[in-house]
């Protein structure tokens, strides 16, 4: 691929394309297998820089970010801390700083920041079509206790919560209030 084509894919990953450029990039991707492979590599690099990835490699970069944050000025919050955890404020530029730090690190040393809330120790051999049958499913349980999903397993509830956060972006007429559903989750237990 040419330098221009690589730049085009990079810009696509960064969301910088519009109009004809975007159309051109999409057509290029559809028609070129090598471009798709390259796009995936760029995408992965972008994911790493933005903090999406696997737990296995997270520690290094998290530590780096923590160290960097320790060196950054923090904003004091007026309210007395009520949580056990130590109170810090997230500087406005936190994400830019984190991304900047990640970019400064060599690619080889880049750990992936993503952190896992779901147990990942149940990995099984590569999925096959038979997963339709094999994957355990959560049967319906209509017994609402408190403000939470009517499911038995925390893993399923976590997934639904993640979806709920994304869905709330488009939650229609409830508008300004919609994220109350997220903030109130699991209350009343």
């Amino acid at each position: 691929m040419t330098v221009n084509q690589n730049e085009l894919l990079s810009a696509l990953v960064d969301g910088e394309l519009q109009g004809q450029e975007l159309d051109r990039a999409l057509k290029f991707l559809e028609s070129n297998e090598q471009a798709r492979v390259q796009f995936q590599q760029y995408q992965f690099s972008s994911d790493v820089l933005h903090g999406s990835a696997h737990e296995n490699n997270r520690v290094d970069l998290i530590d780096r970010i923590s160290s960097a944050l320790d060196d950054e000025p923090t904003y004091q919050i007026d309210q007395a801390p009520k949580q056990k955890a130590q109170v810090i404020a997230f500087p406005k530029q936190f994400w830019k700083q984190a991304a900047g730090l990640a970019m400064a690190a060599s690619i080889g040393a880049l750990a992936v920041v993503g952190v896992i809330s779901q147990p990942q120790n149940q990995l099984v051999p590569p999925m096959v079509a038979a997963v339709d049958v094999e994957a355990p499913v959560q049967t319906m349980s209509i017994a609402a206790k408190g403000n939470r999903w009517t499911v038995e397993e925390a893993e399923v509830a976590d997934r639904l919560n993640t979806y709920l956060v994304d869905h709330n972006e488009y939650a229609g007429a409830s508008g300004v209030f919609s994220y109350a559903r997220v903030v109130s989750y699991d209350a009343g237990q």
Partner: protein
Amino acid sequence: MRFLLHLGLALSLSLAGTSSFAEPDAMKVLERMGAAAKQLNYEGVFAYQTGQNLQSIRIIHRSDGQGEVERLISLNGAAREVIRTNDLVTCIFPEGKRVHVNRRPLGRGFPSDLLRRLSSATPYYEVVSGQQGRVADRIAQELVIKPIDSYRYGFRLWVDKDSDLLLKSELVAGDGNVLETFAFSTVELDKIIPDSLLQPQISGKEMTWNRTEPESAVNMAAKKNWSRWQVAWLPEGFSLVAQQNRLKAANGAAVEQRVYSDGLSSVSVFIEKIRARHSHLHGGSKMGAVNAFGTILSAHFVTVVGEVPAKTVEKIGASISPTDEKPGQAALWDGEKDD
């Protein structure tokens, strides 16, 4: 020719039948309400009630040249927080020591597509002005919104006469039961919101971070053709209004979200490739007024979520299928790698 005549007649009857549902003044209030929510600076406390549960939540919203920032804090129990900025949604759950960070699609502020599509909702709802009332010590205009069928809920909204801010909202089932209520108890408008009020009060240390990222910023029209999934049934008036792909940090799985709306109600369809042996919802679940339906298709978790009746998410979920219909080959092409 006869067919065209019949078609024209049917169309004209349809239009005639639908145009009378929405009271123009009520629609204008709705439109102004949508704009006010985005443009105003306000701080207040509102109650959120669903079933037997009542929560008090503090909300702080600032809008300026930099865009919007909003922070919600639960005032009961654990101090959960949601902070929304132009490009991030951060959810902090101190009791589980978890932080969820979702990067917004396209990173361009709070979505407002639904409000721009209000006019498309008019054939499917009766929208009329109700009585004037008092909410949070302010005079409010009530709007009563009733759906034409049982696939969506109705609403009763109370909108501030002075500022057009939504002060109270009820989600109403077909039998008249109120499923969910949001109502300000106090609210201050036009105040200066300092940065300190928009900072989380909870430490980021000792927390587990869980992030999702938009896979790439491409326009919806282009992405339409990329999806390997189709939804064969939607309630009348629902159409695709947004589509995005995200990467879940937890396992690297890509999640496709497709949002369908009639202009007031909305449902999201989530399609997530199974990356490992995990449990998933099979059938229905609910949380407050939000219903979900889940199933597994071609090695993907398929989930429908929305503030619509259970039968709506179930019917939509049951109508979803991969377009290629080849078992094991229904993966989205967009950069996923099989485990």
